[in-house]
């Protein structure tokens, strides 16, 4: 019987940061986790619990100090930094809490950027960017400068940009952290829609009601998984 290769598999992953005084800080302390394709996972924990580090490692922005991270069955340590950039470009979409967009750049140019790095033609970039913006209902702001739109609009543009390369994984780090309840709900519904279409979503949050959108909730305390609950 052929075993199914999980999308994300972490084995005893640790992450240790050196501190200025020569000490070091243990952000992750032996985390093991499997995420299958199409899951909607919320990772919860108080600030300083290591949940952001967790996301950075899963998003190939950072590498584990020890342990193994297999993405689609392949150890990420075998990739060069350019190969990692290529995987981030094509397979992973990011939505951060803040500083999501290039300032003083139009909304559409922001959404086009990942496609530029992928070498997609200008014509195709514009078309796909507009499609993505339409999906999050912000196509009417395409030519606005990113610093001239509201926080909720920024997050919608960020989602459009994250999805424009049709990645298999969406990583969202406190995507509603700066938004009011109503706008937060709208953003979460957009993310939920993407998951319904098959995108694997990993959501970092410390808010229960946001985590409730997910089908699986993992709680982290002091760099360790304390609960892993599927609905």
């Amino acid at each position, binding site marked *: 019987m052929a075993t199914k290769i999980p999308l994300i598999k972490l084995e005893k992953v640790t992450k240790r940061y050196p501190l200025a005084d020569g000490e070091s800080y243990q952000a992750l302390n032996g985390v093991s986790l499997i995420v299958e394709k199409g899951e909607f996972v919320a990772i919860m924990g108080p600030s300083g619990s290591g949940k952001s580090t967790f996301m950075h490692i899963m998003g190939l*922005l*950072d590498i584990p100090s020890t342990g193994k991270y297999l993405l689609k069955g392949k150890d990420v340590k075998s990739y060069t930094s350019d190969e990692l950039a290529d995987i*981030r*470009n094509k397979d992973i979409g*990011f939505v951060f809490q803040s500083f999501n967009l290039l300032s*003083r750049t139009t909304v559409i140019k922001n959404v086009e950027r*990942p496609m530029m790095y992928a*070498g997609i033609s200008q014509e195709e970039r514009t078309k796909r960017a507009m499609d993505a913006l339409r999906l999050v209902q912000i196509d009417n702001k395409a030519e606005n400068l990113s610093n001239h739109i509201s926080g909720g609009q920024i997050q919608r543009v960020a989602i459009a*940009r994250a999805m424009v*390369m049709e990645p298999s994984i969406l990583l969202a780090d406190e995507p509603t952290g700066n938004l009011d309840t109503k706008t937060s709900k709208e953003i979460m519904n957009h993310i939920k829609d993407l998951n319904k279409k098959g995108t694997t979503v990993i959501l970092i949050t410390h808010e229960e009601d946001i985590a409730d959108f997910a089908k699986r909730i993992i709680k982290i305390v002091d760099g360790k998984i304390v609960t892993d609950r599927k609905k």
Partner: protein
Amino acid sequence: MDYREIVKTSLQVLRRNVMRTSLTMLGIIIGITSVILIVSIGQGAVKFITDELSSFGTDYFQISPGADQFSTLTGSNTLTLDDVEAIKTDPSLTNVNKVIPVSLQAARVTANDEDETVNISGTTTDAPAILRPEILYGEFLSSENNTASEHVAVMGSDASETFFGEDTNPTGERIRINGTPYLVIGVAHFESALAGSVLSNSIFVPINVMFREIQGQERIQEINVSVHNTELINQTIDDIEVLLRDRHDLNEGNENDFRISSAQDILSTVETITSLLTLMIAAISGISLIVGGVGVMNIMLVSVTERTKEIGLLKAIGAKEKDILTQFLIEAVVMTVFGGIIGIILGISGAFVVSSLVGIPFVVSPVAILLAVGVSSLVGIAFGLYPARKAARLSPIDALRYE
């Protein structure tokens, strides 16, 4: 990689900080401006001299009496009409075309109730071959005028105006030089910007009459020799030097008691001075460009630090090291090339103003412009490389976390 998009983005970034960008470009602007300015003016000066010399022709050279300029000026009298005749008739000097002796002396001229001191030039019928006058009235001196020692005069156009007024034909009139009457047989005008006004203010008389009546002795200030073939001019100069040394009984070890200078000599002197000057200014501009380049590097380093988070974001969405490197490098190059273009515009405008003030031709050197563009982009690449590499090598997580 979409370079057009990156250049557009770079222009946007630079526009955000207009003041900072302009100040950074200043060093480049000054460097390029001075190079373009000096090269243009230098080439204008060379063109001026070349035009000037070709208005007389480059097919002649000049023999002056005395071993050096000082002895020429103090009245050294080592050249004779026999020397002139020898050069004319030597069968081995086949390249010699015309040989024109000139004797100069200021004298008191009266005519038409005017009384002025005028330069008198004693010469022969061949003088127009080199001086290239425009004969306004009458004719130039003939060989009969000389052989018969006739008291005739050809007036320069300005001299004619002084005595007889504008647009008046004075041929047939009489003038007095040092009291002796002369018949005016022609008026000649000289175009040359350098010597034109001196020549047009002179009066030309047969050289024999000049010696007898005005100098009181045989005294030649210069012998002009024109040649058939300009390419052989140096050989002809050498041959004439040998001939004159022999005629003047100069032994080995004795210096020449005459000097030979050709239009080519003057031109090459001017070219040497100009290229030396250009080299000097280029060196100074080089320093300005280096200082400008360091300024660019400094600002690019500041920019990389300021935009660390942006670099992190770009890396998160898939920018490779090469992408970031290219973006920052293009920003630096856009800045220096832009400075270079401003420098070119300022340099050309400056050269235009200077050349019209000084009265030399306005020359724009395409080579200098290409060089300026090349050098300014090179400065951008050289000084932008380090900051761009620094940006490209940032780890995505360190960049994203940067506060």
